[in-house]
């Protein structure tokens, strides 16, 4: 239809450039148009008094408008308008046809009856005329597209068996391999299931530099009818042995709104936890939180799965796995206590049951005696609280009990601040008669470490009972999770025995999070408040009376110990070591390229750019490699390396930093290369990606009913060997129709108004 009126196909107008072929100067055209329009207006207005009364209204304006349009159109035609457009030269260009042959193309949701596989539908489209049409004017090369591209002799040989689709890599490879070939356009037949995350700017730039349009043909349903698909699992990649891990699982469903399924977490074959889930509205992402025990030290492959429901179209996307490196290293916490008290005893007892934690304590039993517990050697803390950074920074966390700020020298207070800010450690302030405001911490130089604005006065510590309850933030926190079910956990907190005492800690600072509050008389006060500070974190627990949770509940009740173990782990678990290795992703999907980074610091946690850093890669089947990591310019202490994991499987990377003969530290991380798994996810046609790719490269997304026009319209391309053709527009049918229409309209109106 478009070509009937406009003579040429749409690409001529979208890709061409408008020109005027007339020999008269171009500036004259608008001048004459304006003059004509104004002249007509003046003429009509000057004669209006002589015209019939009926014309003394908007009717005169209509006549003026129609006549102006007519004159303008005629004037434009006199200047000979035309379009110049680049067009591929016949038989001198090549069209690259890329057919996705990944496993998702085997899904049978295409064709007229919706029962043909996507691959079969794509081949049928090619054989039904596209390929023949292209071959009339161009040479064609057919490629399979999966992890890369490869030439295919016959289209019918394509089988949808490849384990991955990397459209980005395939196009990049095509651009590189055909750099010296006159490729006029690319035709991509795919479901858009890009496993690599999308088409990057580099690839788009490579195509645009060659002005190579990518025409895309999408296959597959854009929306499934019955499916549950795991979207993501947010889980820390490191954990301490036996720690409580929190995983946020997001998924979406279609066709099962209101239905029920089970979210199960497995460590190997063993189910570590499960949760009944009621499915939300269709298409919306639903998020569930599950808690589970990290287990013993080692590398864990934790799988999260949603139990398949009847009639599900794709059950392979119901599960997702994550690797967790569980460390058996003990975290060491320095606990400074200013007086013997029950809270000290029961915190220590809770920590003793946690094999991942070592609480090293110094307790002032008398004015001049310090009793040390948990020390590793007789010299540890023999001189009291450390005065050197390298001695204090050995610890991962610090607890400040009922001890006055003045007990610490200004240097020690500054070390305490640096411990959090620079070393990235955690500090927990407890309530007590020498703690917080009553201990002078509010007026100290490190008051900024406390996550609350401490009251200015004293006598904030009260030996009166107080009960605890969770805030909304506390209900979601792993620190305060006593039972897995969130609602039951909130109720569990409300039923805890009262605490023996409480302390007014003041209002929480901006950015701080109140996890628990306490009811003290009629007042509601912050009980447990946390905040991030510098590289580390701090918290205040404004009581010394939680020991009643241990003594006043049934024998064997884990509440007290569990809470303190979780809080102490929060304090210490995330404190970084001197060497911290990292990777952008720890699950490589069908791609073995590894980008490894490491931050190296010395004993005082000062960046160590002069370190020698080596990564020892240990892979499946005994594969092993040593990779030297190179310093990153302008980023002291930062090192990086690239490596390729050739085989699928789990890998362990041990990064070791040395300075001379001294080992600065080491870190271990894990990653996994999985091939073929990503292909099970997002199996609906990704039309958005295909449309975006074609629009960014000057191509077009083609619908099935439009395909017959593809061979002819694809030729309007500036890539390959092309000529610029000039197409005059004066003889377009639409022009004559407009001339006729304008004149007829004026005549008909005049007839109607009776002024002819």
């Amino acid at each position, binding site marked *: 239809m478009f070509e009937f009126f406009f003579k040429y196909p749409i690409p001529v107008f979208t890709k061409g450039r408008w020109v005027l072929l007339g020999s008269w100067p171009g500036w004259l055209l608008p001048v004459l148009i304006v003059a004509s329009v104004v002249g007509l207006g003046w003429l009509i207005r000057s004669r209006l008094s002589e015209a019939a009364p009926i014309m003394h209204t908007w009717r005169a304006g209509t006549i003026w408008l129609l006549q102006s349009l007519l004159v303008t159109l005629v004037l434009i035609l006199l200047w000979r308008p035309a379009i110049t457009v680049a067009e591929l030269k016949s038989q001198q260009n090549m069209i690259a046809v890329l057919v996705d042959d990944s496993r998702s193309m085997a899904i049978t949701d295409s064709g007229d009856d919706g029962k043909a596989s996507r691959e079969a539908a794509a081949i049928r489209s090619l054989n039904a005329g596209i390929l023949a049409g292209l071959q009339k004017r161009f040479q064609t090369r057919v490629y399979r597209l999966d992890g890369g591209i490869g030439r295919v002799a016959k289209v019918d040989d394509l089988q949808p068996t490849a384990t991955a689709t990397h459209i980005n890599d395939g196009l990049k490879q095509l651009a590189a391999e055909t750099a010296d070939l006159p490729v006029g356009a690319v035709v991509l037949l795919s479901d858009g299931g890009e496993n690599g995350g999308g088409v990057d700017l580099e690839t788009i730039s490579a195509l645009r530099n060659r002005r190579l349009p990518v025409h895309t043909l999408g296959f597959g349903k854009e929306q499934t009818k019955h499916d549950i698909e795991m979207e993501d699992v947010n889980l820390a990649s490191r954990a301490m042995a036996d720690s409580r891990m929190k995983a946020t699982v997001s998924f979406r469903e279609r066709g099962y709104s209101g239905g029920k399924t089970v979210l199960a977490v497995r460590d190997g074959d063993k189910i570590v936890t499960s949760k009944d889930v009621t499915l939300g509205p269709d298409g919306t992402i639903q998020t569930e939180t599950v808690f589970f025990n990290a287990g013993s030290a080692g590398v864990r492959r934790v799988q999260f799965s949603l139990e398949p429901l009847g009639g599900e179209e794709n059950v392979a996307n119901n599960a997702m796995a994550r690797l967790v490196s569980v460390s058996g290293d003990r975290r060491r916490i320095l606990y400074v206590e200013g*007086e013997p008290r029950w809270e000290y005893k029961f915190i220590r007892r809770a920590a003793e049951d946690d094999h991942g934690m070592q609480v090293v304590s110094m*307790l002032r039993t008398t004015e001049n005696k310090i*009793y040390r517990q948990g020390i590793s050697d007789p010299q540890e803390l023999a001189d009291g609280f450390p005065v050197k950074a390298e001695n204090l920074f050995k610890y991962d966390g610090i607890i400040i009990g009922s001890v006055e700020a003045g007990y610490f020298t200004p240097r020690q207070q500054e070390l305490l601040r640096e411990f959090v800010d620079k070393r990235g450690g955690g500090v927990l302030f407890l309530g007590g008669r020498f703690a917080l405001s009553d201990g002078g911490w509010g007026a100290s130089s490190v008051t900024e470490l406390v996550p609350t604005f401490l009251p200015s006065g004293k006598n904030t510590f009260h030996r009166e009972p107080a009960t605890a309850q969770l805030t909304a933030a506390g209900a979601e926190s792993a620190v305060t999770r006593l039972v897995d079910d969130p609602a039951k956990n909130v109720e569990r907190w409300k039923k805890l025995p009262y605490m023996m005492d409480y302390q007014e800690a003041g209002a929480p600072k901006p950015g701080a999070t109140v996890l628990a509050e306490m009811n003290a008389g009629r007042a509601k006060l912050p009980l447990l408040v946390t905040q991030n500070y510098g590289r580390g974190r701090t918290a205040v627990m404004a009581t010394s009376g939680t020991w009643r949770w241990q003594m*006043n509940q049934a024998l064997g009740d884990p509440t007290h110990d569990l809470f303190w173990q979780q809080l102490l782990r929060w304090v210490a678990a995330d404190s970084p070591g001197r060497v911290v290795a990292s990777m952008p992703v720890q699950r490589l999907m069908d791609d073995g390229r590894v980008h490894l980074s490491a931050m190296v610091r010395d004993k005082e946690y000062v960046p160590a750019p002069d370190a020698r850093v080596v990564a020892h890669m240990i892979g499946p089947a005994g594969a092993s490699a040593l990779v030297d990591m190179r310093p990153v310019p302008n980023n002291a202490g930062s090192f990086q390396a690239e490596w390729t994991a050739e085989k699928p499987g789990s890998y362990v990377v041990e990064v070791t930093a040395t300075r001379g003969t001294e080992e600065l530290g080491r870190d271990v991380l894990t990653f996994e290369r999985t091939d073929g798994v990503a292909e099970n996810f997002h199996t609906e046609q990704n039309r958005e990606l295909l449309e975006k790719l074609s629009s960014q490269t000057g191509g077009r997304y083609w619908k099935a009913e439009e395909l017959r026009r593809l061979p002819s319209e694809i030729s309007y391309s500036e890539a390959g060997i092309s000529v610029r053709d000039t197409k005059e527009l004066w003889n377009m049918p639409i022009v004559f129709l407009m001339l006729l229409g304008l004149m007829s309209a004026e005549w008909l109106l005049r007839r109607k108004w009776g002024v002819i």
Partner: protein
Amino acid sequence: MKLFQATIIAVIAAVCCTVGSAYQRTADWGYQPEQSNVKAEFAWSRLSYNSNLGSMGYRGYGYGRWATWQRDYPKADRQFLIALNRLTRIQGRPTEQVVNLDSDDIFNYPWVYAVQVQTWSFSDEEAKRLREYLLKGGFLMVDDFHGTADWENFMNGMRQVFPDRPVEDLENKDEIFHVLYDMDDRFQVPGEQYIRTGRTYEKDGYVAKWRAIRDDHGRIVVAICHNMHLGDAWEWADDPDYPEQFASMAFRVGLNYIVYGMTH
């Protein structure tokens, strides 16, 4: 004649009372002190238990004349608390707290002291409550029982609480003897009777026994001071006739046991 006989009887009765009173020298028999409402971190808790002297008509928790749990009470307790507050940073309540096994109130006092434990007797419920108290984190110090027979009687009660846990002799290197004071040179601490008799022992308890029962983690939960009378040493520490070295040893033992109980 009748007046003479009455006088003789009255004199004899007075002498008997005086002798009996002098023998015990417990200035506050029958004294029922008020419980303190002062709030502090540490409350000296004395265990009021049910005595097995029931056959003699003295069974009960009461403050009666023969309630054995209150031996040296409350002077010993208060004199000890003076030392506690003076010599350590523990915030001790100036007066003692009497607790029993009839209610869960004992769980608010994680350290408890008991004397004359050869006379204690537990119902099943009381034994269970004491067992739970100790396994949850409570600490029991027992004192002032002497000789073989007392030991057997003490153990009769203890076996109700812990049927299977062994009693062990503490060694010098044990942490409880070093937590505050180093106490490798311990010796038998006699009761007040030492002033009159010069003996450091009572009955056949010739040698002081420093014993303990531990929990599953190896922490002492019951500290047993057998063949010694620390309570008397605290009580009579201000008596010029009572030797200072015994009082000092008794205070140091008590302080170590409290600090241990508050740290382990």
